[in-house]
């Protein structure tokens, strides 16, 4: 699949929760589009601390309008600078990068689990699943309601279950406490979030008989497979998160790795 290095114009940028910014980028000239789970490497100019590009997942994409959404958690200099850029300015991006989630087959029961920083890719994944004729369930966990993005886009696609640590919205606790992970029956579970959460999810009773795919957010230097910095330790050896991933079958991962993902 070809890759593009392009200046994308910021069409809209708005606060989507505390420390959360929803940015709409215009992708311009045609290109083959994005698969769910893919990401972009965005150059954030203007600081010696953001020397390398920053990876961000496709949060949503509309091929007819060419509008791409990214959901940015503000955690450091790069994300802060990006979130503060006004509409009209442009950012340089390399895309589309990475593999993608495997689409479920007709009639399968599907759960999408996201925690905190890991929810970004799940909206676009949900949309593609719906386009495939399946209504997914979303289980999203947050520290509290203030850090939550708008939930309507999710509930429009499928059933939405919310968990917050302080109970300020939905059930109180961690996503892994939710009964669907204990008693639910699924064919496929897709998961993205902090390391500990993903580990717990793929080991939950509900995941026992399901195919589980997780999306990793390993530190990256290049994002297109040339530096070998972003490896995930797998049963097939060290694989690149940026080209062999970011989506991995949970059974392939060794999980012993320190700081495997965004947590």
């Amino acid at each position, binding site marked *: *699949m*070809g*890759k593009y*290095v392009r200046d994308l114009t910021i069409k809209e940028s708005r606060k989507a929760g505390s420390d959360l910014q929803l940015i709409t980028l215009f992708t311009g000239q045609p290109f083959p589009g994005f698969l769910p789970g893919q990401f972009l490497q965005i*150059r954030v100019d203007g600081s*010696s*601390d*953001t*020397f*390398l*590009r920053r990876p961000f997942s496709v949060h949503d994409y509309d091929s007819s309008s060419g509008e791409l959404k990214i959901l940015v958690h503000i955690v450091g200099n790069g994300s802060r600078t990006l979130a503060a850029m006004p509409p009209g300015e442009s950012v340089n991006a*390399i895309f589309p990068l990475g593999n993608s989630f495997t689409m479920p087959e007709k009639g399968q029961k599907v759960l999408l689990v996201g925690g905190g920083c890991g929810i970004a890719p799940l909206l676009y994944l949900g949309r593609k699943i719906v386009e495939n004729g399946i209504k997914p369930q979303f289980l999203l966990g947050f520290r509290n309601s203030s850090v939550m993005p708008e939930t309507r886009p999710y509930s429009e696609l499928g059933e939405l279950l919310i968990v917050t640590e302080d109970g300020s919205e939905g059930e109180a606790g961690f996503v892994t406490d939710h009964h669907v992970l204990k008693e639910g029956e699924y064919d496929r579970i897709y998961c993205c979030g902090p390391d500990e959460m993903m580990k717990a999810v793929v080991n939950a009773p509900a995941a026992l008989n399901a195919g589980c795919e997780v999306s990793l957010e*390993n*530190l*990256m*230097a*290049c*994002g*297109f*497979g*040339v*530096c*070998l*910095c*972003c*490896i*995930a*330790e797998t049963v097939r*050896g*060290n694989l690149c998160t940026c080209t062999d991933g970011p989506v991995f079958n949970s059974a392939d991962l060794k999980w012993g*790795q*320190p*700081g*495997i993902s965004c947590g």
Partner: protein
Amino acid sequence: MIDMTVDLNGLKLKNPVMTASGTSGYGTELEDFFDPSLLGALIVKGTTPEPREGNRYPRMAETASGMLNSVGLQNKGIGHFKEVIYPDISRYDTEVIVNINGNTIDDYLNITGQLVSMDKIRAIELNISCPNVKMGGMAFGTHSASAREVIREVRKAWPRHLMVKLSPNVTSVTEFASIAEEEGADSLSLINTLLGIAIDAEKRRPKLANITGGLSGPAIKPVALRMVWQVSKAVEIPVVGIGGIVSSDDALEFIIAGASAIQVGTGIFLDPEAPVKIVKGIEDYCKRHGFSNTEEFRGSFEDVAP
């Protein structure tokens, strides 16, 4: 007309721009962005006799205008290179140079021996400067007797162009340059990364699993330029400049300091199209300044009083 070719002591390059080892995979990954045949040469990732998994994650940390890496020569070994990679990249209309590594001299000889039969490979880059492996690597490149020995043995075993890649983590880079020249190296490339560490103050722990890593990027350019300048005055063989090159201005600075050609490393991560843009930028510079070839201003910066 600008003649962009470079004669690197017999190795003819269509232009002075190469990719640096470990920063462009096998070159094939760049095809998504441009035709690798447009470059002067491709230097493929550090290759060892046996497959290696490299160091543990995290392997990279960002620093001011630079980055540390502790990849540690992850590669699938020379066998895989021979069977899978070589047939594929032989189609490139440019030089493909293999960066060779080992724990022991025998390792270097093993890999050299296998490369001899690969006709497409007109040159090897003998890496005695990898800071990310426990055995071999920088240990050869920072100890003069070992450096001499490994260069001498590889020289005997390798009939074509031998480029030796020097470590900057030494008191006198010219000492190692002269050793390489004496032992018959055809060219020198420098610099490899500077040994560094990064620390997460909040967590009070190293940012790299390996603790130490190699510093690359614009941060190291002044040191790289200095070493290229010193070495190109100290030896007769051509020098290939590396270190923090992200633009054609950077590349030109290395040529002005004395380099015959240059390699782009970390710059590729920032902009995968950087190598071709640099070729173009050098050509424009020649036009603008009335040069027909880079050789006309190579090492020229001492001709003018500052």
